């Protein structure tokens, strides 16, 4: 490693009872690409927020090279971090959609009222940065017309034009196709050769192994390991992350049974592509897992909304277990035997301030074991909750505690308990492992396979291609509201289909 440009030493941060970071040391060399790995809640984001001045550390120092050696960075001041040459690209973009790419890049640089921004030196500077980095964007196009990959380039350029010497990227590939991700890393590599130091946060072991120089792993807020990527392999990193061997989901093919979900000619009209479906037909059989691959925003949300009953299609027919549901509402589809694991569990899956026990009965308030003549049968509800907590290993303060106090993985287990205890014919699992750590994600996969073995059909919508390939019997690719069956479960081929290259 060359001379360090950044040194974090002894950083600690506590939020109440939670030790988010404890005594973390980290250093970054000039031109180095460092991958920061860790399960959800391991403290990666807190650490970066302290580096960026959003949080004030309880203890520790940050030192940054200012050209004449390492200097202490004043803590808790984002402006100081910016002027020390630290740039951050957040997972969720912070762009003004109605401004051009150039305006977005220059926003906040120099005077707001400068009229020369569009033409003169500033534009030349941006073009120079684009040429050096290889990150090409049509500067005069409005951001609302750019693709996700292009928007991300705008975000990175925004950081680079401020003479950033240390770039932090928070899960940069979460919204990209595999090909877009590869080209992003190629650009980052070029920048690193020119002297930029990069820290990127990721969950995906494959890209971490392929594109970093060094890997630092956080667990429970502490740095538990640091290895040169050349000496690392997947098993070793996974073991560092979870503190044990990463569990693998065993998947033996089963004999598919009768169709449990039949969509024919489903069409949804909408202004934006993410809500549009064009002539979607699809059959899921019992004891079968069908995967839907695709870059986010290609109609998966609309498909999930139709199958959940939240949205009635403009044309087409949906059958559950061979029968048309009485009405196209969530309640009717639940009754017809559809179990739903929603994409955004905080928004659609749970009522955060209500207890675990209450959330477990949310979808079946009419059940005779839940209510009698309109009154809740508390004893039965509590007993069922205790049993569910036991069976699904939902860890937290207990069945009476508000669901919002549970971790993401345990919240998802709560939703699984609700879905599986209703013995559904079809399980719609929309991004079921998003934001979960390896252990919890493997648990979700195991449960889905087990439910499948019990005779349910599973429709698995995911952006994680590795997960789809590991779990699915068949994979269909969704592009622009259309479904196409993938001939093989092959990474590269499906990746190309996702990008719309092959049909």
């Amino acid at each position, binding site marked *: 490693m060359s001379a360090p440009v950044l040194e974090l030493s002894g950083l600690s941060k506590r*939020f*109440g*009872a*939670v030790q988010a970071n404890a005594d973390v040391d980290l250093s970054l060399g000039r031109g180095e690409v460092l991958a920061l790995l860790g399960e959800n809640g391991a403290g990666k984001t807190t650490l970066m927020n302290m580096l960026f001045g959003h*949080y*004030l550390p309880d203890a520790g120092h940050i030192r*940054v090279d*200012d050209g004449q050696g390492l*200097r202490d960075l*004043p*803590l*808790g*001041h984002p*402006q*100081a971090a910016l*002027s*020390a*040459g630290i740039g951050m690209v957040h997972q969720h973009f912070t762009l003004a959609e109605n401004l051009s790419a150039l305006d977005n890049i220059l926003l906040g640089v120099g005077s707001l009222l400068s009229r020369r921004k569009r033409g003169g030196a500033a534009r030349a500077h941006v073009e120079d940065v684009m040429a050096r980095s290889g990150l090409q964007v049509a500067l005069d196009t409005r951001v609302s017309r750019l693709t996700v990959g292009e928007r991300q380039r705008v975000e990175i350029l925004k950081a680079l034009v401020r003479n950033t010497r240390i770039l932090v990227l928070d899960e940069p590939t979460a919204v990209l196709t595999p090909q877009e991700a590869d080209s992003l890393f190629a650009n980052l590599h070029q920048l690193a050769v020119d002297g930029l130091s990069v820290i990127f946060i990721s969950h995906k072991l494959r890209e971490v192994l392929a594109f970093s120089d060094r890997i630092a792993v956080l667990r429970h807020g502490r740095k538990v390991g640091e290895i040169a990527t050349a000496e690392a392999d997947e098993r070793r990193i996974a073991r560092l992350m979870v503190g044990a061997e990463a569990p693998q989901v065993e998947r033996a093919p089963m004999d598919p049974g009768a169709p449990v979900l039949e969509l024919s000619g489903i069409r949804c009209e909408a202004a934006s592509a993410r809500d549009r479906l064009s002539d979607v037909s699809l059959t899921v059989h019992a004891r079968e897992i069908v995967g839907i691959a695709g870059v986010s925003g290609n109609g998966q949300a609309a498909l999930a909304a139709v199958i*959940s*009953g*939240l949205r009635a299609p403009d044309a087409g027919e949906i059958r559950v277990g061979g029968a048309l549901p009485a009405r196209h*509402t*969530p*309640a*009717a*589809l*639940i009754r017809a035997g559809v179990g*739903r694991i*929603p994409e955004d569990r905080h*928004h*659609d*899956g*749970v*009522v*955060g*301030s*209500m207890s675990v026990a*209450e959330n477990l009965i*949310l*979808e079946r*308030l009419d059940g005779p074991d*839940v*209510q009698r003549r*309109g*009154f*809740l049968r*508390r004893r039965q509800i509590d007993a069922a909750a205790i049993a569910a907590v036991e069976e699904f290993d939902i860890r937290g303060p207990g069945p009476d505690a508000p669901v919002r*106090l549970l971790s993401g993985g345990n919240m998802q287990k709560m939703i699984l308990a609700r879905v599986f205890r209703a013995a559904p014919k079809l399980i719609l699992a929309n991004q079921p492992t998003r934001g979960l750590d390896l252990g919890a994600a493997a648990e979700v996969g195991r449960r889905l396979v087990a439910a499948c073995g019990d005779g349910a059909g599973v429709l698995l919508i995911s952006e994680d291609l590795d997960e789809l390939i590991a779990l699915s019997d068949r994979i269909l690719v969704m592009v622009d509201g259309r479904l196409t069956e993938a001939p093989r479960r092959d990474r590269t081929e499906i990746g190309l289909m996702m990008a719309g290259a092959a049909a």
Partner: protein
Amino acid sequence: MIRIEPRPPVSGTVRLVLPLAAALAALALTAVPLLFAGAPVFTAYGLMLKGVAGSLFAFTETLTRATPLIFTGLAAAVAFRARLWNIGAEGQLYLGALACVWIGTGMIDAPALVLVPLVLLAGALAGAVGMIGPAWLRTRFGADEVVTTLLLNFIILIFVQMMLEGALKDPMGLGWPQSEPVLDAAMLPPLIDRMRLHWGFPLALVMAVLVHLLMSRTVWGFRIRAVGENAAAARHAGLPVTRVLLSVAALSGALAGLAGVSEVAGLKGYLTADLSPGFGYAGIVVAMLAGLSPLGVVVAAVYIAAVFVGADSMSRELGVSSYLADLTVALSLICVLLGGFFARYRIVRVPTVDAGQG
């Protein structure tokens, strides 16, 4: 430089003590304007206490004042629980009062056992109708119920004035815009001889207990809470969100309507356009002070009533403006909100540096 950071959840005891501490803090802060008004502070507090609970009469007056506040406080609490912002309890109160005098001034002649439940029912129904309208507009067209219910208050009040000048005007009223007196058989009798406290107060207590049981023990209450806390998840789970909102609207309006019946049939005996000095709006403060808890509403309503009654009697004796009561109520609300804030966040100091370096 200071910054605000979240703090770990506080215990249940703290959450119970917090509003009480806030109420005491508000009362203590009232000393500042008292000093400015040149009043002897300790004497003033003594007189306030005497006005609130110095005698049986004073105490029953406080409870009489609390009665409509319990009803309107409950109306706000149930609606707010479902995130339905009913600011129209004032108007619904007048609708209830209007229904009460319409039925109760001679349209039907029946024994008290029939007539009293009848006017209560009519008032509740009228209030319910007054809130279902705005709630329907919200669920159907997305019309903001804060605006519609607030504006309806004025429409309803003007409608009441119109009725008091016309169809409902008392021919024996010497030209005053007031309704005919309610029949004796329709009146809520006094609770204690020679005191103004009437059966509306125990009725309000019963309603508070019923609403508490409804919210905590029934499927209906469960649905109301779920829809209020996360409507998207409730819809996803197949709950009938629109129906729940309309039913909450009806319940909330009915409770406010009962406040009107209780004031007319329990206290005044006839309807005038100044029946309520803003009980509907004060109900919102009561509900917020109570943290939307139905049983807490009773405590908060008695507190607010005590502030009004106490400040009133103190100001009469010392010659201090009785606006002091409004000030204390406002201070209480601010103290409770601040208390809630500091239960969730803490303030951390950051040493100031020159940010322009590097």
